[in-house]
């Protein structure tokens, strides 16, 4: 325990992104009162500035990596990767939310503030080096997301989504906490590195069993947050019910952050007892892929379909975790980045298309989009192709690395079944493409307005991101590989 507890300047620098976002969140709520009704639109600009500043400071913080605040936080490549990722997700969801809120006549500073706070929580998760910090970060992120999911509180679907998300989320968190309590009891600490050391010291057999039990309980909590089977069950309902830009955010940000802590906890703290948790991650990965892909086959609601696709994608990342290697971690990181872009892009199209009150959310409604708005449809196609895993997109390389990592770890059957799954997955993405390009435009498509600035920005950035990750994967992959070494 360090003797001097007073935080140093370096400590503050390392949590500068969180500080910026929190302060900005508070300021924006205050600003609304001063600005008055007609200046509301500037709120999104200010939020963007805050995000951008946080992004810069997150990158800057990586220049001076290390532990801070009595080992509560760790800033390293891994943390920076996920911080940048979740802040980027925040920015993209901000772009698409602005237009949505205006459309629903629900623009208010609280939405932006909650978005900022939620991303703050995810940044804390990314940097946390302590189970208790992870827990608090997770709760900040989750509670803000619960509220966002029910943001349009006069909408029945919003309510239901929020309630389901909240009740089941808290339920799963209780399991996570119980796991934390047991790991504390087993090792006498909640610091990840200390736990690792404690588990490495040759102890009694019972100790390992208890640690395994604790790992299983924590697995429940994390698997719930990343929507991995058999704890994926909340995701379709919540994704369907929440406002489209919130779904966009939920499916990328909190998920990425939850995977970050998942990776860090299981690789660092539970690294010594791999043989205990690897099998259940393995089974969960397989189950997740199968449930996600096969259930998506028969969906008609596009939000629900994408929700199942999001579950299936979580399954692929679980495969990378099951590989339990440095390459696996790097693959998971890469895939999460690629997934964030393609998924956000897809949901941005849904946001744009659904119109006020989310009237048009069926796959069939998209009929003829390819002719009515060729550019939107083309961008959507890029995202779908990436989700299918066609070369030159991020999704392809993501899957490539993941399955390569799995093969390197001798998970031959998982690789075979995973590849089969991604072959099945092509079918339901394809259905969207077919409807878009090969059906006559229907009522929904004909009444479509041009794409607004915010959603256009989201679409283009996501498309560029997807393609860049597919054509020049080295840039991100090298960073991921370098930083994955730190997670051990």
């Amino acid at each position, binding site marked *: 325990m360090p003797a001097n507890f007073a935080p140093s300047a370096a400590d503050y620098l390392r949590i500068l992104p969180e500080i910026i976002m929190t302060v900005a969140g508070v300021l924006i709520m205050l600003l609304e009162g001063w600005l008055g009704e007609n200046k509301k639109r500037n709120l999104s600009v200010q939020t963007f500035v805050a995000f951008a500043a946080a992004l810069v400071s997150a990158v800057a913080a990586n220049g001076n990596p290390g532990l801070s605040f009595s080992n509560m936080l760790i800033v390293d490549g891994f943390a920076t990767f996920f911080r940048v990722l979740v802040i980027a997700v925040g920015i993209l969801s901000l772009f698409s939310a602005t237009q949505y809120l205006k459309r629903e006549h629900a623009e208010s500073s609280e939405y932006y503030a909650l978005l900022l706070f939620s991303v703050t929580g995810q940044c804390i998760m990314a940097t946390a080096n302590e189970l208790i910090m992870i827990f608090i970060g997770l709760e900040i992120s989750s509670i803000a997301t619960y509220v966002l999911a029910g943001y349009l509180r006069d909408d029945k679907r919003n309510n239901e989504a929020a*309630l389901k998300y909240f009740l089941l989320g808290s339920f799963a968190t209780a399991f996570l906490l119980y796991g934390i309590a047991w790991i504390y009891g087993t090792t006498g600490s909640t610091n990840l590195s200390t736990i690792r050391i404690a588990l490495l010291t040759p102890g009694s057999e019972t100790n390992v069993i208890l640690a395994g039990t604790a790992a299983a309980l924590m697995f429940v909590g994390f698997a719930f947050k990343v929507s991995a089977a058999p704890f994926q069950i909340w995701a379709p309902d919540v994704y369907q019910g929440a406002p489209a830009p919130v779904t966009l955010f939920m499916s990328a940000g909190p998920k990425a952050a939850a995977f970050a802590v998942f990776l860090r906890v299981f690789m660092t703290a539970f690294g010594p007892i791999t043989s205990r948790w690897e099998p259940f991650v393995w089974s969960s990965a397989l189950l997740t892929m199968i449930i996600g892909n096969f259930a998506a086959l028969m969906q008609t609601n596009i939000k629900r379909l994408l929700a199942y696709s999001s579950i299936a994608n979580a399954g692929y990342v679980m495969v990378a975790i099951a590989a339990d290697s440095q390459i696996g971690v790097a693959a998971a990181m890469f895939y999460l980045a690629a997934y964030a872009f393609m998924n956000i892009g897809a949901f941005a199209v849904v946001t744009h298309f659904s119109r006020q009150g989310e009237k048009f959310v069926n796959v069939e409604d998209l009929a003829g989009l390819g002719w009515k708005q060729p550019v939107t449809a083309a961008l959507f196609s890029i995202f779908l192709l990436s989700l299918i895993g066609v070369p030159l997109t991020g999704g392809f390389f993501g899957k490539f690395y993941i399955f390569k990592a799995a093969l390197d770890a001798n998970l031959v059957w998982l690789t075979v079944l995973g590849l089969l799954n991604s072959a099945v997955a092509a079918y339901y993405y394809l259905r969207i493409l077919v409807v878009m390009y090969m059906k006559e435009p229907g009522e929904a498509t004909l009444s479509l307005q041009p794409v607004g600035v915010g959603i256009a920005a989201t679409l283009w950035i996501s498309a560029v991101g997807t393609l860049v990750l597919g054509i020049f994967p080295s840039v991100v992959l090298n960073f991921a590989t370098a930083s994955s070494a730190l997670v051990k």
Partner: protein
Amino acid sequence: MNLWLIPIFPLLGFLLNGLLGRRLPKAMINLIALGSVALSFAWVVKTLVGLGPIETKYIEHYCTWIQSGTLNISVDFAVDRLTAIMLMVVTGVGLLIHIYAAGYMEHEGGYYRFFAYFNLFMFFMLVLVLAQNYLLLFVGWEGVGLCSYLLIGFYFTEQFATTAGNKAFIVNRIGDFGFSLAVFLIVRQFGTLDFTKVFDAAKGLPAEASTGILTIITLLLLVGAAGKSAQIPLYVWLPDAMAGPTPVSALIHAATMVTAGVYMIARSASLFSKAPITMDTVAVIGLATAFFAATIGLAQTDIKKVFAYSTVSQLGYMFLGVGVGAFSAGIFHLMTHAFFKALLFLGAGAVIHGLHGEQELGQMGGLFKHMKITAITLFCASLAISGFPFTSGFFSKDAILVAAYEHAPWMYWVGVLTAGMTAFYVFRAWFLAFTGDYRGHAHPHESPLVMTGPLMILAVLSLAGGFINIPHFLEPMFAERAENQGLAWLSAGVGILGILLAYVFYVAKRGLADSFAKAAGGLYTLVYNKYFVDEAYDATVVEPLIEGSRTVLWRGVDAGLIDGTVNGVGTRSRGIGSILRLAQSGNIRSYAAWVVLGSIALLLAIGFSGGLR
């Protein structure tokens, strides 16, 4: 040599036409689309002239694509003799078909879109051919599949076109599954994807140690090749793919893309030749496909369908060739096939064009006097595909059959029989279309020069293309096979016999065919319905997939298990509607029950078995 320019031209064409095409006049679109392919062709010629005899492989390295651990994949293009042939075929035939398409698509909607996709296809096909490692090849491989899908579904208003596009895509996914698994295994085994390194490493492996893994890898590659090249059992998509515009059928589904599987096997010859089991499988699949598709071709009445099944059949020949180790013969046939099959399709397109969209042979007849050029050029192509002496097909097909004879004589005999059938049904189509009396209602007319020009060039190539001695050219890469004049003449004789039979059945003694079909009865029905393979696929693969997930997820688990314990069995089973519920019942408590069940399962596993070891 700037090899990268070769694929870049069509890519530029795609971008220009794709982004600006809507606002450009047709002449401009033509200029961009045709010009880019012409430039690409010119650059190929310049490169090949510049490289001279290409004794060794010429490789250009551009950049490192992926550096991950020990795996290093770079963007490299390479030219060797095999590539040179493919480049000439792809850009040359591609250019001719582009020119033809400018005439054919004249009055179709979405003109710019069509050429944008067409150019994109050329780009990916050239990447596929030039690639120097498996990953880059896979990029091209997937890309051409995508373009094929887009172009099959080009007439999006027709429901059939969309389902056909789906079928093509999904079957190709099965092939891709095999291919990608093979790629992973190659990485695992050799630590690289670079062709030269992989093949050198494979050569260095001792036979006992390598046979097993190489057999698996090559079998998986074969799955990929079979999907792309429409071999049994993955051939079902190709006949349906004819729903696309005819130039697409000619370029993608006859001359170039579908031969990618053959090219890939020839490219991986070093791996395949060390896996005798796979080689035999390739040969048997090829032969079976050739025979099987030929029998189906006998009974088709749609002119494009006839040629589609003949494509499947000819691809089977190529597989037979590479399967028996005669890689050069396989590639030889690939080239000549590109000439005469492109010609057959373009000719068929000209007929359809002249008849305003009529494709049924029953609605044709006596067209010779209306469209002489088309008829004559098609006749040349038919001669070539029948293996008539001294046409291109004669040389290439017989090279394959002779090699097959040396491998196993029975393969030769089946092959010869197939050759006879091929000659029969191709000429059957020709006679039905061009001789006799006109049976249709449209006003047939000859196509413009922009369409007949390419036909004539291809006709010359189909007749004389066999004198390009490909096996000799490829000798440094693949050992040349012995010749056997006697066998060659025998199969040519069977071909001529087939032509004569067709003449007897459809010109000299009309009605004989019908009575014959009647006599065959059930057999004819079976063949006419393509052995009910499509129906079997639906029943065995597609339906169970959908139905299975529906049944298992909707009914089984939740209704029985969760609701049973939570709410009591009695009430919930009331009403049929409530039986149809998933695990996703929408009920929070049931969701929580799932979470609990999952956790209990985990804990039990940990507690009892000491951690699921």
